[in-house]
Structure formats: C-alpha cells, structure tokens
C-alpha cells in the first residue's frame, strides 16, 4: 500500500450547544470551537498505522474555505504526509464527494478513507458517493481494517452483528470506532506540521441537488417526574399506563 487518501471535515466540537440565527436558517458559529471530525481522526490514525515505517504516504483532503486550515494542520501534526484543500464551502455531501473525486481522477490513490459520518450533518454519504463517482467498491461503516499487499479485510457493521469482507485495492471505506485509536500529536509532529505541504486547489462547477433551508431544535421535554427509589412498581405502572411504552 503506497498511497492513502483520508477525507477530513471541520466540525463543531462535540460539547457545542447547537443554536441557529436568521430565523433558524443559519447555524450559529459564534463562539463555536471547530475540530477534526472524530471519525475522521480514526480513519487518519489507521492510515498512519498502515503506512508506518516508510511503507507509504497519507494525504488528507478537505473541502473548505481558508478557515479550515487549523484543522488541516492538526491532521498534519497527527502524522499525515501532506494535505490538499479544495477552496470552497462544503455545500453538501454530493458537492464534497464530487470535488474529491475530480482530484482523485487526476491523482490516484490505493485506498480512500473517510469517517463513518461527520458529526454535523451525519450523512455517511461521502464514502459511497466517492465509490460511485470513481467506480470503486465502497463500504460505508467499517469497524476493522486489515491490509495485505493486494487486498484488505474489513468488518462491516450490520444490525446485531458484522460481516467480514475481503476487498481488493483500490476502494473507499468509512471508518467507525474499532478501526483504530485516535492519535494525539506530539511536539515534533506539531512543529513539522507547519512546514508540510498544503496544496490549495480551486473547485470545479457542479450541479446543486440539495439545499438546507432551515433548522429545528428538538422539542423540550416537560419537568421530570421523580419517583421514590422504593416505589419502582409505580414507575413500571406509569410506563405502562401513562407513557404506554411497555
């Protein structure tokens, strides 16, 4: 395995309280800390392990405007070899996948990894769309990835179990927990990240297929009904007769 591409996104930190502005049409980024998508960190960690010891290189690619560069540098500090930023706002998964596919057509890779989903729009779509655009196999949610020279064995999550799949390179996979432990950048990584190559590529034109028009927040629940620890029978009765869930 010589060349791995890891697709990364820049997402609100997991502790963010999500609010909206402009009559609930814009995500309120005021005061929000942005981070490398946690699932992408898993993909990146596995890519670094697979190429460890000079066996290959790891390129990270992000579709985003200049404000995503801190997240890209974080990926370089963790251990990516170089980075590409496609200079456009990430409109939706289709837009992102299309831009990355165009780049990959000109710059082929042996393996393309993404996170299973981004924690902002929760799509799990980029891996499958890249597979389709590049006519490669794709596995959307994997929890294990082992590789030999010519092929990989992955475990795909299914309801109540897993499938073990062998798959030849090149292919696309979305990584979930279990594939690798995220890596914390060390001081040397942080220093070297500043000088690693980050190429900025301009986007290509693509048709728009979807548009977010507004947001809603979940309805708040009423006051909690506290029940005495000695009266579990009352709880069971309420779940049956009032909530009607058992």
């Amino acid at each position: 395995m010589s060349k791995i591409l890891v697709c990364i996104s820049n997402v609100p930190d997991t502790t963010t309280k999500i609010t909206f502005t402009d009559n609930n049409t814009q995500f309120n980024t005021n005061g929000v800390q942005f981070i490398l998508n946690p699932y992408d960190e898993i993909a990146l960690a596995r890519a670094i392990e697979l190429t460890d010891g000079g066996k290959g290189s790891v390129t990270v690619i992000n579709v985003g405007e200049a404000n995503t560069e801190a997240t890209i540098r974080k990926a370089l500090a963790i251990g990516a070899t170089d980075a590409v930023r496609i200079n456009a706002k990430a409109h939706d998964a289709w837009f992102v996948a299309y831009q990355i596919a165009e780049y990959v057509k000109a710059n082929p890779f042996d393996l393309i990894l993404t996170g299973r989903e981004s924690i902002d729009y929760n799509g799990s779509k980029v891996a499958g769309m890249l597979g389709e655009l590049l006519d490669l196999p794709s596995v959307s949610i994997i929890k294990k990835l082992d590789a030999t020279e010519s092929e990989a064995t992955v475990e795909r999550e299914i309801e109540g179990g897993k499938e073990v799949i062998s798959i030849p390179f090149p292919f696309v996979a979305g990584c979930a927990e279990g594939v690798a432990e995220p890596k914390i950048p060390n001081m040397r990584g942080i220093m070297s990240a500043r000088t690693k190559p980050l190429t900025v590529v301009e986007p290509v034109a693509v048709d728009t297929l979807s548009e977010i028009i507004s947001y809603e927040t979940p309805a708040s629940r009423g006051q909690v009904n506290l029940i005495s620890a000695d009266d579990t029978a009352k709880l069971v009765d309420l779940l049956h007769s009032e909530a009607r869930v058992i």
Partner: protein
Amino acid sequence: MSVLIYAENAAGKFKKSTFEAISYAKAIAAQNNANLVAISIGDVADDELAALGNYGAEKVLNVSNDKLKNFVNQAYASIIAEAAKANGADIVVLSNSFSGRGLAPRLGVKLQAGVADGAVALPVQDGGKFTVKKNAFSGKAFAVVELTSANKVIALTPNSYKIVKGGSAAPVEDFIVEAKASDFKEMIKDIVRSTDKVSLPDAEIVVSAGRGMKGPENWGMIEELANLLGAATACSKPVSDSGWRPHSEHVGQTGIAVSPNLYIAIGISGAIQHLAGVSSSKVIVVINKDAEAPFFKVADYGIVGDAFEVLPKLIAAVKEYKASA
C-alpha cells in the same frame, strides 16, 4: 410516475425498519398519486414478498440469484437504480440502516438525485418545493433539506415512522437485470449475526448503563432487565472506551444515535455528547444517585438512587408486571 421502495431483508426475513420504510413510502406515493413498487434482493420466500402488499406495495420486484444472496453494496445499488429507471420511479425510499447508508449515496449519484438520509418525517411538498426533515448535529437538531433535483432518494431513520397496514397481497415479478462483473469486487467471507439479542438501532426499548455500574462484572443486572423488557443493551462512551462493553453498544454523538420508544439510562450522568444520541427517544427514564446529574433535565421519569439498590427492585417490579400482564 411511481415511488420505489427497497425492501431490505436480514437473512431472508424482512425487518421492522423495512415495514416502517414501506409505510412511509406508501404515504409519499399517496401524496403524489403515484404507484408504490417494492424491490427485494436476496433470498426471501414468495409469500413474504407478496405480503409486502399488506403495507401498500402494489407490485413487488424480486431479484434472486446465488451471487446476490448476501449484500453486495455496488451490485445492489446498480440493481435498485435499474429498477427505478425501468419503473419510472423518481423517488426511491429505503431504510437508513447500515446497508441503507451504503446504498443511498451510490443511488444518489447513479440517479443524479438529491439524498435526504436520516429522514424523520414525511416530505412536505409545497409550491413546487420538496423538503424533508432529517437528523443533524447528531441528534442536537434537525435540518430541513430541499431536494432540488428531479430524482430523489430518501433514507428513513429506523423507529421514526409508524407501520401502517392496509392493502392485500401484491403480485410478485422476477426482475432480471444484467449485473456488471465490476460490481462484484468485494467478497463476503463471513457473517456474524446474533439472533438472540435485539439489535440496538432497531430496538423499541433500550437499557443503557454508564460508569455508575462500576465495572463490566456488574452488567448481569443490566442484561436481565433488558431481557425482561425485550430491550437492547447500550452504554456510554467511557464504558466502551474502557473496554467494559463493545463499541457497537456506544450510544451518543460519536457512537450510535437511537430513537427508541423507551430509553432507560442507569448510572449515566448525561454529558452533552451522550444526550445528543438519545434526544429523539420518545420516553426517557433516568436512574442516578446524583440528583444534580444533567440527564434528569431531559428525562421524563427519574429515580434518584444508587443503581445497585434500585436495579434489583426495578427488576422485581418488571417481573411482577410481566406476571400480571
């Protein structure tokens, strides 16, 4: 025009999430005065195929051969796209299951369709706009997405639409499609499926526990309560990170988002990341010894008490309820 629903099976049986997706697709077909065509791929018995008519399918396409017995993402996507074209379907509906998450993006590209995945409500069609409400920010919010393309793909979140019965057995037709060799690069070597446990994303009741359980050796009580209720077991991130429970049980922002009818959280304080993954549960019960635990703020019912004292009493009360029911 018609609506195509991909009827997913697990080991030859249709799943509850499939019936939800058919009921949902039927309502979309009704919105548009369209026919509902179902497609099944794999090895499903004829009477089960015909029974999809009971949920509103007017015709069932069956694709069955040895190579397609198990899920092959690329090949399945090609077949569903061909069926959509052959039946003039401009809306394709599927469940946002693990397989559905593999299919929806490939279908979106093949059909040049906008994809609404993680849909939680019926589309709203108003003044030429087609919008779908879907999960966003890992359960902390919803986004209303307009699909501006002529073709549309919608993947429905499990447990978010009620199954509606109505209709009678549907005619089943074999759907013959030439599969490309390049669609079969991946090979399934093994399938491990636990048949005795309720799968977490599909579960109507989830019993979930956190660090308050003190160690993996104490999960017997959690499993006993789950078994009594026919529930799936789940856990918080620190629990799966410590290796007490498998990652597949981790519920929360970086794990699985669930929307069961009943979520029982035991010994989980309720960090914002965990709450995100459970916020669309219909009813939440929290058991925690700390009355100040943030989880109580989003709970419907709560018991302030030590899990090791409350759980045996709760198990006894559920047993009593089951015996009297």
